[in-house]
């Protein structure tokens, strides 16, 4: 594609994205192998990153913000109907992809949230908030934690199929920009609007403190 190369994804968005790609298989593997110490450490990291991504969705650069990519059903339908007609690439998430971001982020938050309460103190590891619920509640949450992984996996599968569809059918490589942050845009189209670094540091600090607070069992503040 001719045109100028512009920034479309900032570094925090890309780091979050590729961390999720590494952490989800790692969390599945550690659970499967019964490496619960590592499972919990990686899980709290994933939770912290997902919380950061939510904060960044309000304070981050233009393409990271929920307000810039969460669209109503009419816009999503119109986007789907116009799938076959040629159009300029979008700077940021397309109307359907925006919902994919929300679904994946929500599923990761729910899954890690369930994990916080999982386990049985008399039988191996317990999540850091296990002591806050009764033994039978923890038992149910543990079962949901195990089965909800399949929902997360299905959402990841749909996401990958969509990326493959754009690559094979639409001849649009979405992976490369998610690595480099840049893509070629026709004409004089502008890229994303970045925000100052202090916003990143503030969101990171808030997410890290929240994750740490959960990790130590959510003591009263």
């Amino acid at each position, binding site marked *: 594609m001719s045109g100028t190369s512009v920034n479309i994804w900032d570094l925090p968005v890309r780091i979050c994205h590729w961390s999720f*790609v590494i952490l989800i*298989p790692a969390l*599945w593997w550690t659970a*499967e*192998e*019964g*490496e*619960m*110490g590592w499972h919990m450490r990686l899980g709290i990291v994933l939770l912290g990153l997902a919380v950061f991504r939510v904060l960044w969705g309000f304070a981050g650069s233009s393409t990271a913000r929920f307000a810039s990519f969460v669209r109503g059903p009419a816009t999503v339908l119109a986007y789907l109907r116009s799938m076959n007609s040629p159009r300029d690439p979008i700077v940021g998430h397309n109307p359907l992809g925006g919902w994919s971001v929300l679904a994946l982020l929500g599923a990761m938050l729910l899954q890690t949230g369930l994990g916080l309460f999982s386990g*049985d103190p*008399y*039988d*191996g*590891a317990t999540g850091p908030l296990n002591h806050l619920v*009764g*033994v*039978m509640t923890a*038992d149910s949450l543990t079962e949901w934690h195990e089965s909800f992984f*399949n929902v997360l*996996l299905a959402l*990841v*599968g749909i996401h*990958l199929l969509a*990326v*493959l569809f754009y*690559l094979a059918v639409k001849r649009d*490589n979405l*992976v*490369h920009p998610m*690595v480099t942050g840049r893509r070629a845009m026709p004409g004089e189209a502008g890229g994303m609007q970045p925000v100052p670094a202090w916003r990143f540091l503030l969101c990171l600090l808030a997410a890290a403190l929240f994750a740490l607070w959960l990790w130590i069992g959510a003591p009263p503040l």
Partner: protein
Amino acid sequence: MKLHSPLILSALALSLAACGGAPEEAADVSSAEASVIEQRQDNFEAIGDAFKAIRGQLEDGAPDFAAIAGDAETIHTNAGKIQDYFPEGTGIDSGADTEALATIWEDPEGFAGAAEDLIAASQTLVDAAGTEDLAAVQQAVDGLGGSCKACHDDFRLDKD
């Protein structure tokens, strides 16, 4: 690069999907050994479920002592079978999918004692539940939990 990343991602997704089923047995474990491991895990699973139900009753405020006695009986019965489920060659060194440490066979008296502790603790709980004395039941439950933990500490792989 343009083609590789999505291919790797989809391969990853497929391998994740393929791995969703039950963990496969290690190749060098015979089916007889695998079967005894499965039986003993079911036996412990039933003990764990019964103990969970008992603790659930105690959190309830108005515990059903008959239900507690029944679950304690289950634990007592299953505790009596534990030692039969640990023939030589079914430990973690066999490559099987188990957390049974070699100390079970290196210290057979210690392991037998730990199993006896659970048998005694579950009997204490059966008796306490019969008296319907909440304080005695709570104490017996703590004792039973302690015998679970003590045995896990010495004879079960800890990966936390």
